[in-house]
Structures are given as C-alpha cells and as structure tokens.
C-alpha cells in the first residue's frame, strides 16, 4: 500500500498528518493527567493530615496482588508496543494477535482488581460513611479507603475503555486495515493504553507500598 494513499486532503503530507494526530492525542492525555491530578492532590492533602491512618491502610491492602496487577499491565503495554511495530511492518496477523493479548491483560487486571474489591466489601473497608472495618479505627481511615476506591475506580474505568479500544483495533487489524502507510490509529490507541499503565505506576506505590 502506498503511504500517500491515507493522507487526508487538508494535510500537506503523511508526516504532517501523523504529527497532528500525535499532538492532538497528547493534548487529550494531558487533560487525563489533570483529571487524576485532582485525586493525587487530595491524596497528598489527606496523607499529610492523617499520616498514621494512610500508613495502616496501605499496609492492609494486598501489595503482592497489586504487584501481579502491575506486571499484568506492563505486559499489556509491551504487547501494544509490539502491535504498533507489526502494524508498521504490515503484519496483519501478528498485529491482531498482539492487540488481543493486550486486551486480555486488561481483562485480567480488571478480574484481579475485582477480587480485591470483593475482599474489601466483605470486611467493610468501604468509602465514606459505609466504612465499618474494625481493625483500622484510626482517625482518617475511611478517607484512605475513600481515596483508594476513587483512584482505583477511576483508573479501572479507564482500563475498561482501553480494553474496548484495543478490542476494536484487534477487530480492524483482523480485517487487514493497518499497514506500513496506515498505522496511526494503532499508535493513538496504544498511547491511551500506555497512559493507563503510566497512572497505575504511580497508584501502585502510593496506595499499596508506602
């Protein structure tokens, strides 16, 4: 396929078109970071106020399971990098396979996180006024679990959206939609998935480790 065949008429050439798509995507990712910035700032504020409760809360969460979840997300990111590479080299089958693997890691992450949530529902470590976990009664403990559910919940919504995007890309790839001249969509979907990974890289130590 000719790369030039995929240039929209309002772009001078394929490179200008790619750069425009990248900049637009990064502007969107910037707003996503700012969306989470509010929650990170809230975390910093309440950690400064209720240090002891936050340390106890983090110690109570399952760090080992979260480490596995982190590895799963990183594997998904790597799969997306490979999908981008295969799309660029016009290997439709491998592109599709990599994207399916990436989407599967997203589903695995959601499943592991569901197990985690289930435990917290059972023990009563719930946000706000629903907090009834007898083991940690330090002032501010419910604030920790409120932020835990808000931050991981919003992140999980992004994982769900990402899985949707990756599944759609895999379906397109299976029909041979991507090639050397036309892989922009794979790159943009991949950037979104990497951002989901990027946010988790910070949620993981803040909520589970320190």
């Amino acid at each position, binding site marked *: 396929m000719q790369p030039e065949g995929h240039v929209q008429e309002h772009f001078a*050439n*394929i*490179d200008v078109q790619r*750069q425009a798509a*990248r*900049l637009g995507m*990064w*502007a969107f*990712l*910037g*707003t996503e*970071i*700012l969306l989470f*910035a*509010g929650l*990170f*700032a*809230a975390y*910093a*504020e309440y950690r*400064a*106020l*209720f240090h002891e409760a936050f340390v106890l809360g983090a110690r109570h969460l399952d*760090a*080992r399971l979260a*480490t596995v979840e*982190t*590895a799963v997300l*990183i*594997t998904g*990111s*790597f799969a997306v*990098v*490979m999908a981008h*590479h295969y799309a*660029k*080299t016009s290997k439709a089958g491998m592109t599709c396979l990599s994207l399916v693997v990436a989407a599967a890691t997203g589903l695995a992450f959601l499943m592991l996180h569901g197990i985690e949530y289930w435990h917290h529902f059972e023990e009563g470590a719930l946000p*706000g006024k629903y*907090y*009834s976990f*007898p083991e940690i*009664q*330090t*002032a*501010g*403990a*419910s*604030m920790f679990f*409120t932020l835990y559910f808000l931050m991981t919940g919003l992140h999980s919504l992004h994982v769900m959206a990402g899985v949707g995007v990756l599944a759609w890309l895999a379906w397109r790839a299976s029909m041979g939609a991507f090639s050397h001249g036309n892989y922009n969509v794979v790159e943009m979907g991949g*950037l979104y998935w*990497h951002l989901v*990974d*990027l946010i988790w*890289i*910070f949620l*993981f*130590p803040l909520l*589970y*480790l*320190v």
Partner: protein
Amino acid sequence: MADSTAHADHGELSPARSALIYVGLLALTVATYLFSRHNLGTWSVVIALVIAIAKASLVALFFMQLWYHRGSVRLALATAVLWLFLLTFFVVADVKSRYPLTNPNTNPLWEPPAAAQGHSPPQPSPSGRP
C-alpha cells in the same frame, strides 16, 4: 521498516530494545515491592517514588516514543506534569502551614476510642469530617 522520510522520525523503537525495557520495568516492579517489605521510614516513600518516576520515564520515553518524537508532543506532557506538581505542592504547603488546631487529627478535645467497637459506626470524627 525505517521511514524514508528521515526528517520526521528520529529513529525507531526496535522490538529488541522494547523487550529489554519490558524486562527492566518488571525488574523495577519487583524491586519496589521488595523494598516496601522493609521498614525504611521516610526513605520508603522516597525509594517508592524514585522507582515509580524511573518506570514512568521508561514508559513515556520509549513505549510512548517521546525519545523519538521531539517538540510539541513533549511540551504537552511537560505542561500537564508541571500543573500536577503545582497543584499538589500548594495543597500540601497549605495543609502543612495551617494553625495546628485546624488540623482534624490534632484536635486536643478528641479522645481515642476506649476499646474495639465491633461494627459500630466509622471512626471518631472530632471536627465533623469523615
């Protein structure tokens, strides 16, 4: 594989290099978990954040290709990170510099609960905060 238009892409991420970065990210993940198992006080926060920043840099620079795509796309990320830093810094500076009695956790009238309360209501909230 390489684009013939050399001026647009400053090199590419090879599969071998991305595999190497993938292994590095997994190693850092295990390292941060192992560090967290030791009680290092304030250092545990510092170490966890340094490792998180290292991992995030690897993802942003290589997986997200910022190493190869210079210019405006880098500016978009830098701006978002700067805003995140400003927001967090001033929020914490505000909380830390307040008169101590406005801090719900240092209220002198608050007394810790005498014993375990079973499934009774949340924790004591002296100043009406959750």
